[in-house]
């Protein structure tokens, strides 16, 4: 995207609300920013209607702040709490039927490759746990089987939050929630392992307690998806509203999880590793 697209025409510049001017002046488009720059630039998502302490809002904000090329990034989402903040994002965001995000992204990425052969148009899927692990599982796995060059990012709050707190496939076994009155009776779906088996060339599992790690793995996933193959990042984003903990506890809960079942993990294929060392090993990130 050239900056022209977001610069108001001189005749009307004075009439535009300030937020649009700020986006031009110190948005992340001209020179991509990272997690370390948070607070120094106008973020792609400046406001959202999520609940207080929402882990998903934080996960989405950190992800969007880590895009290597926000000017040429399109995000494909689906129903769920994630789409509230993303609906305010200052980049192309599409949302179709519940669960079809990876199918939509496949078509979108291939078309953009044809229309802009010499530009890396990053197509990033950014969606909740229900959208990927349950209703969208086959479309997600098949985009990986086909080696679609897209980065799939799950903000995992381990519950169907937007519909009022029902058990999802990513809910932990035994957890009592709506539609699991006696506690969920099967294990958290191993999407991270399935990603590896299905052909993802890079995968990372992280929590909102480690913003710097999120910045690194999201950037790496998107850059690798440009050339090598599909990539997957899974971010634990606790939900105070449906798990009934105080909003200010979100980071602590994520930290505790990171010390236990949600430990930081990465996998990378040989050809992805080779590509990374050749092209990006020098950069500090």
């Amino acid at each position, binding site marked *: 995207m050239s900056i022209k697209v977001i610069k108001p025409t001189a005749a009307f510049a004075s009439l535009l609300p300030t937020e649009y001017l700020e986006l031009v002046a110190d948005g992340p488009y001209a020179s991509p920013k990272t997690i370390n720059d948070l607070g120094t630039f106008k973020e792609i998502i400046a406001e959202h209607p999520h609940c207080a302490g929402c882990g998903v809002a934080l996960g989405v904000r950190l992800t969007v702040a880590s895009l290597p090329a926000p000017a040429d990034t399109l995000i494909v989402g689906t*129903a769920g709490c994630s789409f509230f903040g993303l609906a305010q994002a200052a980049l192309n965001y599409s*949302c*179709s039927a*519940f669960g079809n995000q990876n199918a939509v992204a496949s078509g979108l990425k291939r078309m953009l490759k044809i229309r802009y052969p010499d530009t890396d148009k990053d197509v990033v899927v950014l969606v909740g746990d229900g959208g990927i692990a349950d*209703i969208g599982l086959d479309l997600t796995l098949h985009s990986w089987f086909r080696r679609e060059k897209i980065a799939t990012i799950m903000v995992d709050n381990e519950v169907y939050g*937007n*519909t*009022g707190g029902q058990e999802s496939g990513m809910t932990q076994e035994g957890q009592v929630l*709506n*539609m699991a009155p006696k506690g969920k009776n099967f294990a958290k779906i191993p999407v991270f392992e399935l990603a590896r088996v299905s052909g993802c060339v890079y995968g990372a599992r992280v929590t909102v307690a480690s913003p710097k790690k999120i910045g690194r793995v999201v950037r790496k996933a998107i850059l690798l998806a440009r050339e090598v193959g599909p990539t997957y990042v899974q971010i634990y984003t606790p939900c105070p509203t449906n798990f009934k903990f105080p909003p200010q506890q979100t980071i602590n809960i994520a930290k505790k999880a990171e010390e236990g079942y949600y430990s930081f993990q990465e996998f990378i294929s040989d050809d992805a590793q080779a590509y990374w060392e050749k092209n990006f090993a020098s950069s500090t990130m």
Partner: protein
Amino acid sequence: MIEQRVVAPEYLFNEAEREEQFITGSEAVREAIKRANVDMAISYPITPQSESMHLVGDIYAEGYIKEYFRGENEFAVMSSVAGAAMGGVRVFTATGGPGTLRAFEAFPTWAGARLPVVCAFMTRGINSPLSIQPDTLEMAYMLDTGIIMLHAENSQDLYDMILQAFMIAEKPDVHIPVGVFVDGFFITHTRDRVKIAPPDLKLPPYNPYSAPVPVMDMENPPIRQMRDPFVMKSNFISYAAHASWQQEILAAAERSRRHIAHYLGNLLEAENETAPVMIVASGTAVSQSREAIESARQEGLDVGLVKLKSLRPFPTEELKAMTANAKAVIVPEFNRVGWLAREVRAALEAKVKVVGGPRVFGGMTMPPDLILDEIRRCANE
């Protein structure tokens, strides 16, 4: 869970001493299922249906239902429901809006396979753009799936119709699915007075061997049985068999008329049906019409009301009788396409002017004045 005793449906519906509660539509679903002797319920969340199926999950935990689980999406849930019904149990589920469309391929198979499934539809807008608000557009698509369609005006209807739906669906000469449709949010999420039977009463259990088709359990003949074999060999005989099969599904819906009348009293209700201007509506459009009629009568206008309770089978003859003296029929609806106006025009065969509207959609409410304007216009012509 309290000990329940089986009673005759007629007793549970008409004679049992009822207690009034101030509950939401979602809670009305729970109270109905608690008394419906349901074996199995399968759920998937979608606003505005989720609360109903949460509560059904809770009474499963209390012991009123033998089996309950959350599927991975609506198409999978409706397929599991089909598997359960073919296995010979009484099964319940619910969905709405986009969920109805995602599950859609399953509905005609339910009817074709003669599965007496009861499904509640909390109607909601269809994407795009996304709307979680009430809208009955999905009913337009459901009209030709072969399932029986009841439309609840309020939570009392919702409670009664779900219980009655099981009895209608499981009649051997009917034995096709019954959909109980109710407008999302307007009914599911608002409290209302609902008269319910004592909680220690329940419907008789479902007897799978009274079904017009074999049950898939290897315990009844014939053993060499596929449900359902595609009758597709490319010759006339297969086409004739397939056509006859479809006719039998239509016939099943026709046979349900007398059972619907027996349990619901009639396929429609009417008041002041000799008036020159008649309103014909279903769902919450009926409640809005009642308010408009109230104002119209204060202005000295003569207007009547027909509340349709069954949309499939459609009460064509009854509707003709109830609009015999009308010079205009007004059909208010909560959807863009006016599927009920189409049905009413087809039924009345242009013998009377049918005004297709007022219509609101996208989740908008319907101010009674919109209907009142229409009444005034028709009254003055």
